[in-house]
């Protein structure tokens, strides 16, 4: 026989001011199965909680309903109190008669009627509550960071410096990401490489970091604390343990005119190459598609040049199976393909370039050693036109969002150009100048006031070539007239978009993404670095466009989440998970289709001789997040969700 205790809180005047609590207490006191029905001014206070505990002990209660504020407020408080009184905490439920009743209704009588219904319904539910135990899962104290740009490096360093093991996986031959490509960084104009390369070296040399470059994550299995990751080590055709990084191989390589990815096509590289001079690790890779040996079966000049005997043309891809407890995804962004702006002539005119290409031109380590020269004739441009929002905030091109960094880097480009080319003229077409951030607005003002960048508010309609000049036709909306500028170079502030294959990768690792392919955080404001999958965290531009300070901040935040996870040997989770009745399960696998977390596995049922007699669904308690979608899907009512069982919900409805 149920012995339910009902505790009605006045919440000062908040509830009692509207709801007739004595009538509520009396109505519940008469309800079958209720042995205690009392009211008090503040049950959440210490004496209030003590009185609940006392009532549990004295009356040997089998369930507790606290009619008070929202369960989102004090469910944890009262469940803890119940546990302290020896009652299983999951036998306690909250009837929300404040947020959902006394605060929102004017008529006291009707509010009281509603409060009675709400409380009675919870009493009916709690009668059918089961004793549950928190789920404990072990934690593998090793993190994987996917992506070796600034966000990934920062996250890896933070976790490693706290004494935990990290596996840092980078798909390219070197760490560095986009930040290594940049010339100088806003708003301080410090050289990007000068602040980035020491970080790369630190990550590579850290005793707690295992660095896997030229490697890709192929498959992720498991759940928070217990992920199993398969990593493909792409064959470099160079043995890392033998290679000294002397560079003799790429000096000898006869294929010298491959457009360098790192220089955005403005520079050239060889077939055996390191992406850039400061690569970490500094071991080259052979680009199989361009190597003469792989094409014709002859050459091997690099192998002959290698004194360390490190080059091996027979090398195959290798696979590593790694166990990790947490994953930080820091896979970054790409620059939008500007070819879709045919009217700007990108790809047609050599001197129409993207912002990232301008970074390479302005970089001391770039193809022009930091001189601003036109790609077409290597002459110094006298007038550069910058076009902001070339891609961003343009629904017709599929990018409705603001890429956030373009206003700042365009101002930076204008300044770098002014500093490098005496008397150079700059015109910037913009929609709005968005310069929110520490020192940011001051920075754009400096570009205008000290470095004489001319800002024109309006869009560009067309770029074409005429007498060796790039003619830019646009509009100055502030003056209300069309503008035509004869420029020597046009720089497009292209949008930041998700990595190619970002959506497929999200499916591989089991996290959510938005319509653009950026990864979804669990809560935009309150859980910005957690993905929707427990144990997988986000850092940097894979989540949304952001600048370096924001990426670093998010990376450190992810690292702190990982470290919090690793602070215990075992994880405790709410036991609100599904479970399957193997006796009735027919193995239709509807639940498998419904489950967003791949938490349902097929389990063999064997007879005594070990033969499989049937297969049933089996819920992995580590993966299950407790949404209950499978329960509703189940045709044979075999799956149920602890805490929200069919019985409980039906009872709740019947109690209303």
């Amino acid at each position, binding site marked *: 026989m149920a012995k339910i205790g009902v505790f009605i809180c006045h919440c000062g005047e908040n509830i009692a001011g509207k709801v007739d609590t004595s009538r509520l207490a009396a109505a519940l006191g008469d309800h*079958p199965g209720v042995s205690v029905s009392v009211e008090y001014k503040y049950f959440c206070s210490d004496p209030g909680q003590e009185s609940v505990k006392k009532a549990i002990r004295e009356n040997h209660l089998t369930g507790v309903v606290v009619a008070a504020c*929202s*369960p*989102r407020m004090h469910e944890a408080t009262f469940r803890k109190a119940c546990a302290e009184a020896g009652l299983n905490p999951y036998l306690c439920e909250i009837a*929300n008669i*404040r*947020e*959902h*009743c006394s*605060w*929102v*209704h*004017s*008529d006291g009588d*009707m*509010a009281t*009627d*509603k409060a009675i*219904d*709400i409380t009675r*319904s919870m009493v*009916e539910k709690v009668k059918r509550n089961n004793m549950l135990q928190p789920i404990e899962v072990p934690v593998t104290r090793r993190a994987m960071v996917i992506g070796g740009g600034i966000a990934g490096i920062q996250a890896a360093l933070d976790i490693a410096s706290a004494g935990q093991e990290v596996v840092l996986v980078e798909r390219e031959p070197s760490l560095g990401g986009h930040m290594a490509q940049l010339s100088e960084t806003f708003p301080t104009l410090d050289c990007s490489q000068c602040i980035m390369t020491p970080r790369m070296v630190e990550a590579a040399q850290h005793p707690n970091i295992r660095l896997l470059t030229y490697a890709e994550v192929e498959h992720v299995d498991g759940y928070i604390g217990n992920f199993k990751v398969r990593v493909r080590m792409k064959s470099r055709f160079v043995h890392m343990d033998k290679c000294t990084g002397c560079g003799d191989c790429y000096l000898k390589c006869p294929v010298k005119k491959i457009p360098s990815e790192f220089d955005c096509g403005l520079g050239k590289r060889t077939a055996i190459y390191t992406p850039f001079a400061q690569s970490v690790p500094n071991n080259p890779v052979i680009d199989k598609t361009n190597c003469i040996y792989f094409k014709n079966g002859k050459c091997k000049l690099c192998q002959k040049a290698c004194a360390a005997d490190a080059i091996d043309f027979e090398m195959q891809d290798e696979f590593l199976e790694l166990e990790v407890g947490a994953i930080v995804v820091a896979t970054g962004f790409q620059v939008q393909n500007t070819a879709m702006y045919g009217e700007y002539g990108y790809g047609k005119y050599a001197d129409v370039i993207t912002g990232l290409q301008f970074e390479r031109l302005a970089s001391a380590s770039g193809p022009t050693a930091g001189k601003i020269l036109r790609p077409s004739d290597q002459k110094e441009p006298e007038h550069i036109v910058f076009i902001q929002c070339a891609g961003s905030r343009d629904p017709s091109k599929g990018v409705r969002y603001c890429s956030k960094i373009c206003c700042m880097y365009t101002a930076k480009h204008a300044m770098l150009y002014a500093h490098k080319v005496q008397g150079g003229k700059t015109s910037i077409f913009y929609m709005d100048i968005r310069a929110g951030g520490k020192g940011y607005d001051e920075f754009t003002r400096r570009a205008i006031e000290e470095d004489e960048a001319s800002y024109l508010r309006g869009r560009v309609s067309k770029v074409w070539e005429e007498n060796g000049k790039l003619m830019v036709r646009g509009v100055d909306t502030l003056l209300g007239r069309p503008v035509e500028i004869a420029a020597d170079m046009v720089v497009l502030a292209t949008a930041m978009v998700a990595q190619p294959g970002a959506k497929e990768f999200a499916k591989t690792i089991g996290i*959510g993404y*938005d*319509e653009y392919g950026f990864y979804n955080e*669990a809560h935009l404001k309150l859980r910005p670095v957690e993905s*929707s999958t427990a144990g997988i965290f986000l850092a940097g531009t894979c989540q949304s466009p952001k600048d370096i300070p924001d990426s670093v901040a998010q990376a450190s935040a992810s690292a702190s989440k990982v470290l919090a996870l690793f602070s215990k040997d075992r994880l405790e989770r709410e036991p*609100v998970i599904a479970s399957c009745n193997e006796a009735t399960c027919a193995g239709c696998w509807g639940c498998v289709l*419904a489950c*967003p977390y791949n938490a349902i596995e097929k389990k063999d049922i064997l007879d005594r001789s070990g033969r499989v007699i049937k297969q049933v669904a089996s819920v992995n308690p580590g993966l299950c*997040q*407790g*949404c*209950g*979608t499978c*329960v*509703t*899907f189940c045709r044979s009512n075999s799956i149920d*969700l602890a805490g*929200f069982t*069919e019985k409980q*919900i*039906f*009872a*709740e*409805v*019947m109690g*209303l």
Partner: protein
Amino acid sequence: MSEQFEPKIVAFVCTYCTYAGADLAGTSRLKYAPNVRLVRLPCTGRISPMFILKALQKGADGVLISGCHPGDCHFTHGNYHARRRWTVFRALLDFTGIPTDRVKYSWISAAEGVKFAELINTITEDIRALGPFTQYHGLIEETQSQASL
């Protein structure tokens, strides 16, 4: 003047969006009609058509299902399952002769306290206009005796 009919409406809501939206309506002290009773579930994906039928059978004059907006589901896509299920179930309701306008479906996020209050007022008025739902009343006694089992 005859007394106004006060419908009883049962709402099945997810805890992450609509329940939180209703909490927000409360903390914002918005006023709305006292005719709705909320049943909190982890996700709209957990809502079985049987719950809706049970509520109607028990004497509810209307039912509301509300969860996170498409794309915002805490459980990534439970609300899409709910939506698909609802589309199919509505046809079945229609077939059985239960007026589909007694069952409403909506999206309310945790930030939409005002929308929640407005929705409850609108639905209460709509159901009030439809009058009491009597088709199942004969079965109430029977189901109540079952419930006490």
